[in-house]
């Protein structure tokens, strides 16, 4: 078990390095291959009308005139040990982990990420609880009475949930519950300051996001339950004289939850890397919104930082899913 964790951790680190290298290549190698000069490349990091001194500073700090692998090495070294940016008149020390420095906004990337992460986590966690509970419940009820009115209702809602884009449901929720009838707050308040206000503001965003995801979970649970409830071991559980409720929950749902863990872990991992559209619609200053803003500003270092952070969450979530899966299904051996 422990050796498995160690091996998987090493594999995860290597995977992250590969992701970083590929992302780095896209940012620093492709433009050169496409014929951009070093000056043109450096210019992109600064914005309109750069002075030659600015360009020189970018080239110096990113090592743009050096081979790409050396640039990559500097970047990785920055993450582990920190880096110092020499901007001519001033120097900026970027503490480890240094995920880069925006020459446009003159801020370090990492503090931006950490300050926005709680928003994204709040959004993802709240929505995840909602969609998991509602999706699995709807799926179980649907599976127990296939073809019933409730089944059709749930599956209808699920279908619309997965088909309606966030631009629609999110805006509608905002319009109705935040502006028309101001039940919910407009500005994000950190959980540590005021938990009830925090939940109050995020609630419409949670619901909109959960609607999108719970559809998949409802369908997954429904089909899983339909299959499981016709298994022989369900008949055995009934033959023992168990109450039907226990048969469904302890024997039926138990089997269905294992594949759901897998999907849930991946979804959550993806979402932690930034719920781009939801954060934009609800004006939440999270990772996703940071990514959108940086892309709009053509500000490359933050984009690189967000990409790596998102990759980290996905890899980490997969790692956790593997461990949980082994805990959930005794037939899976971690070796």
């Amino acid at each position, binding site marked *: 078990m422990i050796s498995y964790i160690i091996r998987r951790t090493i594999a995860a680190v290597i995977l992250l390095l590969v992701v970083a290298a590929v992302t780095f290549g896209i940012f620093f190698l492709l433009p050169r291959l496409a014929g951009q000069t070093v000056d043109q490349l450096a210019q992109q990091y600064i914005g309109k009308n750069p002075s030659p001194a600015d360009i020189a500073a970018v080239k110096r700090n990113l090592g743009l005139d050096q081979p790409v692998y050396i640039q990559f090495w500097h970047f990785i070294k920055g993450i582990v040990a920190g880096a110092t940016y020499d901007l001519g008149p001033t120097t900026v020390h970027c503490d480890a982990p240094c995920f880069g420095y925006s020459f446009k906004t003159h801020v370090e990337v990492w503090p931006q990420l950490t300050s926005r992460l709680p928003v994204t986590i709040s959004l993802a966690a709240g929505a995840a609880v909602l969609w998991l509970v509602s999706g699995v419940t709807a799926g179980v009820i649907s599976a127990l009475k*296939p073809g019933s009115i409730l089944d059709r209702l749930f599956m209808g809602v699920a279908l619309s949930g997965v088909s309606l884009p966030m631009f629609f449901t999110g805006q509608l929720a905002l319009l109705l519950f935040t502006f028309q009838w101001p039940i919910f707050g407009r500005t994000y308040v950190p959980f540590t300051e005021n938990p009830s206000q925090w939940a109050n503001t995020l609630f419409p965003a949670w619901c909109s996001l959960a609607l999108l995801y719970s559809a998949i979970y409802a369908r997954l649970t429904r089909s899983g339950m*339909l299959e499981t*409830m*016709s*298994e*022989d*071991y*369900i*008949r*055995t*559980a*009934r*033959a*023992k*004289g*168990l*109450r*039907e409720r226990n048969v469904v929950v302890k*024997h039926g749902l*138990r*089997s269905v939850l*294992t594949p759901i863990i897998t999907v849930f872990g991946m979804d959550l991992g993806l979402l932690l890397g930034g719920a781009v559209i939801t954060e934009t619609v609800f004006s939440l200053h999270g990772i996703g919104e940071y990514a959108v803003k940086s892309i709009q500003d053509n500000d490359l270092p933050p984009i690189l930082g967000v990409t790596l952070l998102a990759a980290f969450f996905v890899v980490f979530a997969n790692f956790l899913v593997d461990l949980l899966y082994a805990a*959930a*299904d*005794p*037939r899976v051996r971690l070796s």
Partner: protein
Amino acid sequence: MTELSKTGAAVGEPAPASPDGTAFLDVRDLRVHFPTDDGLVKSVDGLSFQLEKGKTLSIVGESGSGKSVTSLAIMGLHRLGARGKNVQMSGEIWLDGKELVSADPDEVRRLRGREMAMIFQDPLSAMHPYYTIGNQIVEAYRVHHDVSKKAARVRAVEMLDRVGIPEPHKRIDAYPHEFSGGMRQRAMIAMALVNNPELLIADEPTTALDVTVQAQILDLIRDLQKEFGSAVVIITHDLGVVAEIADDVLVMYGGRCVERGTVDDVFERPQHPYTWGLLGSMPRIDRDTTDRLVPVKGQPPSLINVPSGCAFHPRCPYADVPKDNVTRTVRPELQQVGTGHWSACHLSPEDRTRIWTEEIAPKL
């Protein structure tokens, strides 16, 4: 007693075997029908039999003859699950003086596992893959006994030991997939017997096992039956199993009983052409290896459109022996053909004796 008067109403059905008039398990005119899109599936269509404690009844027949549905109906399991929603059921099932068909489902649930228990065909798929053997036995015990988990575990270890699982205190924490097929079936038996049920139904308990293990499992069931004095119903299509373990045999065809009697009667003096066919298709060690097995020709009947008259007539080589086309128009009732021996066939006793002694017996 009410059940006595009901027995009188069932014309042509075998009378209860016990002297006081009520058998421990008494099934009367049981019908279990499943409506489907293609029509009404008459899985069991008028089945009656009795079984006393300490005795073993074997129900034999082809796939789709209604033997498994009969066992599920006794347990009340046919009603549960997606298929059981529209099930139509009539008749009576008396277990130790309690009628189960008309009983409240929760009443039947409380009997399930405690007074009647079941062993299934494939112990790997019949046990939950995510729970340990011990967990599943403890659960079966605690449904019906208000005891601590610790006490139930002691009981589970005891049962595992009883069914011959070595080092039960260690093996109790194993998962089903960590057991061999034979060990799994032993654990399954331990789980079924943990509440000392008076009726044990085994649905093809040895079909999924290899032959050496089969014999061990049958021995185990027989020993435990002696020890607990329970009534045992064994569902099987393997006549070898029947000869090994049963006291009485009930041959099912198309949802109905076609022959019923003691093992000796049915094996030595079978009275129904279908039973002859079953015996003829059984491999025997004393036969010449070049002899071909004789299958029962044709397909098992559709339970939606059961053939008119005798359900077996399309496959019966002697369907034209009785006069006036009676095999195609009149459904034969069970008739007593000997002490405790019944058969549902239109052949006259003389024809039956002649065909058996001249054509069938020499080939077996």
